[in-house]
C-alpha cells in the first residue's frame, strides 16, 4: 500500500494535547513511581532468590488463556487479552511499514504545546515471515514466539511460565482465577472474574496465599466456604493448564 499523499496525518489539537498530558503526568509522577518501582523490584528480587537462581534466557511464552466453554465471556474477560496462536497458517503475509517516532513535545508547559506532525516513511521491503504478534482484543489469535526450549525444572512443582485462567464453581456462583507463573513459580493469583452471588471481597485474603504457598491450598473462610472452594477449584484448573 503506498502512502500516497503526505497529508495523511495532520497534527491536531487532541494529538498534541494527549502528548502534553502524558508529558506533564510523566514529569510530575516520575518521582512518585520510584517507590512503586522499588517495591516491585524488591518483590521480584525476593521471588528470584526464593526460586531458581539459574538465569533463564529466552521467552516466557504466553500460554493458553481460555475461558471455560459455557461460561459467558462477556463482562470482564479482559484477562484473555493475549492468546497464543502457534499456527503459522493464520499469519498474514507482512506488509512492512515503518513509521518514524511520533510527536516530540519540546516545552514542558502543558497547555500550549506546538503540535508536531507525525511523519511516515516509505514502506520498506517486505520480509519473508512473521512470528510475533499482538492483538487488540480478547480472544483474537496472537502468535507469540514459540516457547523457546523449556528450561529444565530445578525444584519440584515447576509450572510452565505464562498466565493461566480457570473457573471454579459453587452453588452461589462461579469464580475465575488468573494465575501468573514466572520462572516456574506462582508469581501471583487473582480473582479475575467474580460471578458469585456475594461479593468476592469475603475471600480477599485467599489470592495472595496461592503465591505464598505455591499451591492452590488456601485457607477455608468461615461463612464463605462456597466462595473459597470455588476459588480453590479455579486455581486448580488454571494450574492444570500450566503443567
Amino acid at each position, binding site marked *: 500500500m503506498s502512502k500516497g499523499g503526505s497529508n495523511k*496525518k495532520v497534527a491536531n489539537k487532541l494529538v498534541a494535547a494527549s502528548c502534553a498530558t502524558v508529558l506533564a503526568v510523566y514529569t510530575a509522577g516520575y518521582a512518585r513511581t520510584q517507590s512503586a518501582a522499588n517495591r516491585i523490584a524488591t518483590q521480584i528480587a525476593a521471588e528470584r532468590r526464593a526460586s531458581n537462581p539459574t538465569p533463564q534466557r529466552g521467552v516466557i511464552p504466553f500460554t493458553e488463556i481460555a475461558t471455560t466453554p459455557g461460561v459467558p465471556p462477556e463482562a470482564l474477560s479482559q484477562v484473555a487479552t493475549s492468546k497464543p496462536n502457534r499456527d503459522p497458517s493464520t499469519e498474514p503475509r*507482512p506488509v*512492512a511499514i515503518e513509521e518514524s517516532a511520533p510527536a516530540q513535545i519540546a516545552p514542558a508547559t502543558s497547555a500550549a504545546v506546538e503540535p508536531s506532525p507525525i511523519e511516515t516513511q516509505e514502506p520498506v521491503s517486505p520480509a519473508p515471515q512473521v512470528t510475533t504478534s499482538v492483538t487488540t482484543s480478547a480472544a*483474537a489469535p496472537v502468535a507469540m514466539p514459540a516457547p523457546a526450549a523449556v528450561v529444565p525444572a530445578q525444584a519440584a512443582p515447576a509450572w510452565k511460565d505464562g498466565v493461566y485462567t480457570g473457573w471454579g464453581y459453587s452453588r452461589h456462583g462461579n469464580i475465575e482465577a488468573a494465575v501468573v507463573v514466572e520462572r516456574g513459580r506462582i508469581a501471583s493469583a487473582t480473582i479475575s472474574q467474580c460471578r458469585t452471588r456475594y461479593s468476592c471481597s469475603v475471600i480477599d485474603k485467599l489470592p495472595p496465599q496461592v503465591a505464598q504457598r505455591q499451591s492452590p491450598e488456601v485457607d477455608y473462610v468461615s461463612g464463605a466456604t462456597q466462595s473459597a472452594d470455588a476459588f480453590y477449584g479455579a486455581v486448580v484448573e488454571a494450574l492444570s493448564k500450566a503443567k
Partner: protein
Amino acid sequence: MPIRTEAVMGTLVTIQVVRSGAESDANAAIVDHAMDRAFGWFQEIESLCTRFSAESELMQLMAHVGVPMPASAILYEAVRFALLVAEESGGAFDPTVGLRMEGLGFNREHRTGEIVRTAITPGDDVSFRDVQLDPGRKTITLLRPLALDLGAVAKGLAVDAAARELEPFKDFAIDAGGDLYLAGSNEQGQPWFVGIRHPRRAHELMASLRVSNQAVCTSGDYERGQHIVDPRQETSPVAVASATVVAPGAMLADALATAAFVLGPQEGIHFLIRLGVEGLIVTPEMQQYQTRGLRLA
C-alpha cells in the same frame, strides 16, 4: 527477550522488550528496572483514578461537590484531557457517564467483584460541562453531583507513561487489556502485527495492521458486553460492533475509539479523519468503514 505480565488496573498488563542489546546481566538489570518503573505507572495511576476505592483522589473529588478541589498533576491532566475529548466529540465521549454505568450494572470491581455504589444522585442531564478546571490553581470543581469515570483515559495514560519509561529500548510492546502501544519493531525487525478480532467470532481476525510507534485500541460490544454508553441517550449504541483507532498514544486511541463507537460508523470515521488519526469501524452487519490512511496488513 524480557517479557512480563502483571495484573493491574483490573486487567493483565504485558510488557515485552525486544532484544535489549547485549545479553549481559547488567543489561538485563536495566531492562528489569525500566519494567518495574513502567508497571509502577499502572499502579500509581490506578490508585489515583480508581472508582473502586473510597480513598482514591478521584473518589475524594466526587465527594466534594461545588468545592474547588486541589488535584494532583496526574488527576488534573487526566480530567483535562477527558474534557478536551468530550468537547471535541460533542459529548459522544463523556467522562461523567460514570454513574449511569453503575446504573447499568458496570459497578463491579474487576478483580474482587466488589460492588461500588456512589452515594450521590446526579441529575439526568449532568455532562462534562459540569466539571470545571482552574488551570492556575490546578483545581477541579464539580458543579453538580456526578460520577467521573476516567477508565478509558487512565489506562491509556498509564500505557503512555509506561512507554516513556521504555523509550530507551526502542523496540517494545505494551498490552494493557487491549490498549496496545507498539514501539519500533518486533523480533524479526518488522513492524508489529496487530490483529483486530472479529466482533462476533472470537477466534477470527477481522483485519490486521502493521504498526510501529503507534497505539492501537479497540472498543467493542463483545468484550465486556455493552460497556459503552451513549452519554447523549443513556443507551448502548447499536450501530457499531467495534471501533479501532490507531493513534500516536494509547490514551488518545482509547478515548477516540470510545467516541467513534458512540458516534456510529459514518460520523465516527469523519470524526477520526478530522482529528488526524486512523481507524476502522465495524457494524453489527460486519460492514467495515475505515479512514483512508489505515494500512491493513
